[in-house]
Structures are given as structure tokens and as C-alpha cells.
């Protein structure tokens, strides 16, 4: 489906905090145009890995290339080519979304069509609202909106759906898939497996600072089934979330 050109290459990445080994020799590649998932429980080292690739954090050792540029000496070049959505990031106080987009346009030295940007994340009605007045889903959509300003080659989403209700989650998935469709590579962290299965072309499972599995979701499931795994419960044709969504509807409702 995608060309197999690696856009991110990570080799033997480690990160120590004093005595703690947060990332312990991670290697993986992300290919242009795919959605790549970093999965794992809280504290596994997902965010640290992401922040090193985003050039927000220094690594202890290893090699990291983003769009062929090394994070060691090309961090400002890399920053121009990527978009970063932080876990629970705040925005400048007392400003409207419209003004915040102007701020970020300046920070990226870009001329932007703010209407178009807001429309692309379904927030055109909220141009004059303040960030803190938005619902959880709207906040995440706005965060993603700010990552699109510089027309990036890669965007990084750190647990974008944590804390959202099922409708908001599904809306965000649609948004993420739409962004990928426009040609942007997406790296996402999550600890929701249904989300990874729905969105990701390939995933890496991180545990205690190491990658313990890496493949497409379908292949990983296939591997497990082949090893003789069976679910304890019989699989039904629907689950409670399907019930909830069919009862309450799927439309965007975080007004």
C-alpha cells in the first residue's frame, strides 16, 4: 500500500534518568504514509521515546533519524517538518482559538488559512471560544489542528483519546484517518488496543523500556492464535460499546 521508505529510523535508543532506565535499547522504523502505534502500559517508556524523536528530550545513546535528519544536530530542521500534539498540553491563557492559531502560524513562520484549519477539525464554530471552554474531544481536535499549521510530514499524537467518551473517540479516529489520507505520516501512542487495531498499520509493543513485539495488528493476532491461544469467553457479534453507540448515536456531540 505505502512505499517502504523509512521516514523515522530509531536504532538502539536508550534513555536513563539518574538510576532509572526509561528506554532500554529500542529499535524500529516508521514508513512514510503509515500510521504507526507505540503501545504499552503507563510508564513503559512510550512518551519518553516519542519526546526524544520530537527533539524535546535528549537521548542517552542510540541513533534517531527523522526525515533523514539526526536529532543530535538537526533538531530545529526536524521541528519545521513535524507536528507535535502533547499529552495534556495547555495553550496560552486568555486567547481565542483564532488568536492561538495566529500565534502558532507565527511560531512556524507560516501564512495559514485559519478558517480552513478550523474547518478541517470541525471547530469552525468555535473560532472565538477559549481553549479551556472546549470539551475534551474539542480540545484534542484543536491540539491536532495546531500540529497541522506547518503542513508537516509527520505528526505525533500522544494518547490523543485518553479520557474521551466513545463518540469523541470515534470522531477523533475519523479525523486521524483523514489526515493520513492527505499523505501525512502519523505516530500515535495509546493503551487502548481497539484503537490501535482500528487505526494502526503497524504497531510496536513497549514494555519496561523495550520493544517486545512489532508488526501489523493482524499479524500479531495471527501469531498469537497460531501459538494455540483461545479466548476464555465466547466472542459475541457485538460488545457493550456497540450497544452504547447504537443507543446514543455516533454524531459529534461535544458542543
Amino acid at each position, binding site marked *: 500500500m505505502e512505499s517502504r521508505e523509512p521516514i523515522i529510523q530509531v536504532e538502539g535508543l536508550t534513555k536513563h534518568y539518574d538510576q532509572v532506565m526509561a528506554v532500554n535499547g529500542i529499535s524500529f522504523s516508521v514508513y512514510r504514509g503509515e500510521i504507526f502505534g507505540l503501545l504499552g502500559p503507563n510508564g513503559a517508556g512510550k512518551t519518553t521515546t516519542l519526546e526524544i524523536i*520530537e527533539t*524535546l528530550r535528549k537521548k542517552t545513546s542510540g541513533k534517531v533519524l527523522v526525515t533523514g535528519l539526526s536529532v543530535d544536530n538537526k533538531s*530545529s530542521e526536524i*521541528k*519545521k*517538518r*513535524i507536528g*507535535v500534539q*502533547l499529552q*495534556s*498540553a*495547555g*495553550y*496560552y*491563557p*486568555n*486567547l481565542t482559538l483564532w*488568536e*492561538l492559531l*495566529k*500565534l*502558532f*502560524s*507565527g*511560531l*512556524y*513562520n507560516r501564512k495559514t488559512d485559519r478558517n480552513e484549519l478550523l474547518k478541517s477539525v470541525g471547530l469552525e464554530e468555535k473560532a472565538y471560544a477559549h481553549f479551556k471552554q472546549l470539551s475534551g474531544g474539542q480540545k484534542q481536535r484543536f491540539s491536532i489542528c*495546531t500540529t497541522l499549521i*506547518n*503542513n508537516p*510530514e509527520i505528526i505525533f499524537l500522544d494518547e490523543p483519546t485518553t479520557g474521551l467518551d466513545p463518540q469523541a473517540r470515534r470522531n477523533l479516529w475519523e479525523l486521524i484517518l483523514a489526515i493520513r489520507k492527505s*499523505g501525512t505520516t502519523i505516530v500515535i501512542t495509546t493503551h487502548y488496543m481497539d484503537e490501535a487495531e482500528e487505526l494502526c498499520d503497524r504497531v510496536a509493543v513497549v514494555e519496561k523500556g523495550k520493544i517486545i513485539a512489532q508488526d501489523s495488528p493482524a499479524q500479531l493476532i495471527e501469531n498469537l492464535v497460531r501459538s494455540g491461544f483461545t479466548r476464555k469467553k465466547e466472542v459475541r457479534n457485538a460488545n457493550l460499546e456497540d450497544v452504547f453507540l447504537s443507543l446514543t448515536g455516533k454524531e459529534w456531540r461535544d458542543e
Partner: protein
Amino acid sequence: MNREEKQYSQWTAMLAISRASFRSITRSPSAVIFTIAFPLVFIIAFGFINPGRIKLEVGLHPGSDTSSAIYRSFILTPNVKLVKDQGLGLLESGLNKGRLDALLFIHPPDSTRVAGRVVEVITSKSSREKGRFVESILTNIIDKGNLAFLKARIHSEKYLEHEGGLTEFRETEIAGREYKMIDFILPGQLGFSILSAGVFGTAFVFFSLRQTLVLKRFFATPVKRSFIILGEALSRLVFQVIGAIIIILIGKFAFGFTLIHGVVTVLNMLILSAIGLIVFMGFGFVVSGIAKNESVIPPIANIVTLPQFLLSGTFFPVDVFPDWLQSISRALPLTYLNDALRQVAFEGAGLTDVLTPLLFILGWGVVVYALAVRFFRWE
């Protein structure tokens, strides 16, 4: 992916931050209150204060004839405090600075003159109204004496002759300027507003930008950290300068604040304010760095601002304190900013004339920024 490859400008990014930050400040009630409302309230309160009971402090020239009837009458006048036993130099400088309302010289009798005695009153524009008051008290006393003397002459009565006959009254006004309450209060309030905006504003803004990951989101863009600080500093500077202009204009047109060289004086005051703000922002960086959580910012910031509020000549001159307290006052940067502002505004000093206080403030700046580099935290 088509991408325009042009030179990235840190300045464009910095200006974007300044613009956003300035908007944010103008919408933050605390910033507006600290910078404009508080100083104005104090200025208005003090601007309307008239000293209720007039107390006169009159210096007595060391050569005065204290055996004269005029002297005896004068010391009986209510609300007059006579400053005696001081050297002439000290008395004159007191008069100049407005500490004394008038200087009285009752010459010894001189029988070679038509008017046998001369009484001289020197007043200063520094306290013009009180000086007038002293003059009218004296002319009153002298007129009565003269009248009595003339009556006595007409009736050939001799008993007044030992007073030396007629008394001549001389008045001189020295070239002090009229020093109003507003001339003292306004620079102090301006200085204090700069201090509190610099310390509180900077500490809160950087603490909360750090806590809410606004700074971290900035780091994910190509802007450099130094330009983030520059952008923030620029917006605060612009806001504070606008605040200073408003305060000075209200002081000038509502309360007759003295601006010796007009616009030049205002510009000098604004430059001093800007330098002061930059130095005080250093305190803010330190506070934002050492504060572990938001609720400890006010106490720590108050440790910096409150002593200066009370001891740096904001409300009363530093001279009124006992010596040991004065030596503390003389170590605080706001004292020097207030001094420099007053000299520029009231005495028409240029920036080179206030080099000493300016160097002192800059010295504090060096110390504070050394600490800020040590304590400031980005994350």
C-alpha cells in the same frame, strides 16, 4: 509534499509570542490592576490629601537677636516650630529641600539706620504656601510693633526706644520649585508598579506556562528558548510603558505633576521604567524557578516586593527613617529607581545625571540574573 523552503525568522516567531502575550496580559485582570489601577488609586488618594492643620517649621538664623520683642512674639504663635542651634548651611539646605518652610533672620538693632531693625524672611518655592504664611505672621507682628512705636513717638513716650525704633521687613524667595504631594507620590507609585509587575507578573506567567505545558508546546516549534523569553519580556515592557504613560498623563493633567522638560522628561522616565522592569523581571524568573507550586509564589514574591514597598521611599521619604533602617533602604534597588525617577521628573535631571542610581540598579540586575540563570527551570 510541497514545502516552501525559506529562511526561518526567530524574530517573526518572537513577535508572534509578544502579540499573543500582550493580548493575554490586557485580558488578565490582575495585570491591569497591578499596573494601572493600584497606582492610580494611591495617586488619587494622596493627590487629594491636604495637610489638615498647618504646621510651620521655621529655621532661625544663628545671628538672630533673640532678645527682641519680635522674637518673643513670634515664638508664641501657635503651630510654629522654631529650629534653632543649627548652622546656616544646614538651615539653607533644609529650606531648599522643603523640610523648612522659611528661614528667619532677626538682625540686631542698628541705630545708624532709619529703621532701627531689619527682619528678614527667606522662603522657598518648595513650600511656597507655608512660606507665605510665615511672612504674614511676621508682618502682622512687625506692623503692630511699628504702630505701637509710632504712637509712642507721637505721644512722646520713650519706653519703646530700646527696641531700636522702626523695624524694616524684608522678604526673599529663593529659587526652589514648588514641590507638591504628587511630585513625591507619583514616581514612587510608578516605581512600585514596575516592581510588582516585574516580579509577580513574570513569576506567575512563567510558572503557569511551564505547568500547563504551554512552553513545552512552544519547544516543539522551531522557536529558540531565548526568543520565547524575549517575546514575553517585550510584551510586558510594552504593557508597562503604556501603563506608565497613562499614570504620568493623569498625574500631569489631573494633579499638576511636575515634568520639567516636558516630553523629554517623560521619555527619560520611561527609559528608567524599562530598565527597572527588566531588572525586576529577573526577580520574577528566580521566584518562578524556586516556587514548587503556585500557592507559594505570592509569599516568595512578597518577600521581594513588600520591604521595598515600605522602605524604598514609595510613600514617605527614606530620610524619615532612623539611620539603621536607612542603611537597609539604601541597599534596595527600588530606592534608587524611585530616586532616579524623582530627580528626572522634579529636578529635570538627564539620564547621565542619575548615573549613580542607574549603576546601582544595573548592579542588582547582574546579581539577580546570575541567580535567575541558576534557578530558572524550563520544565
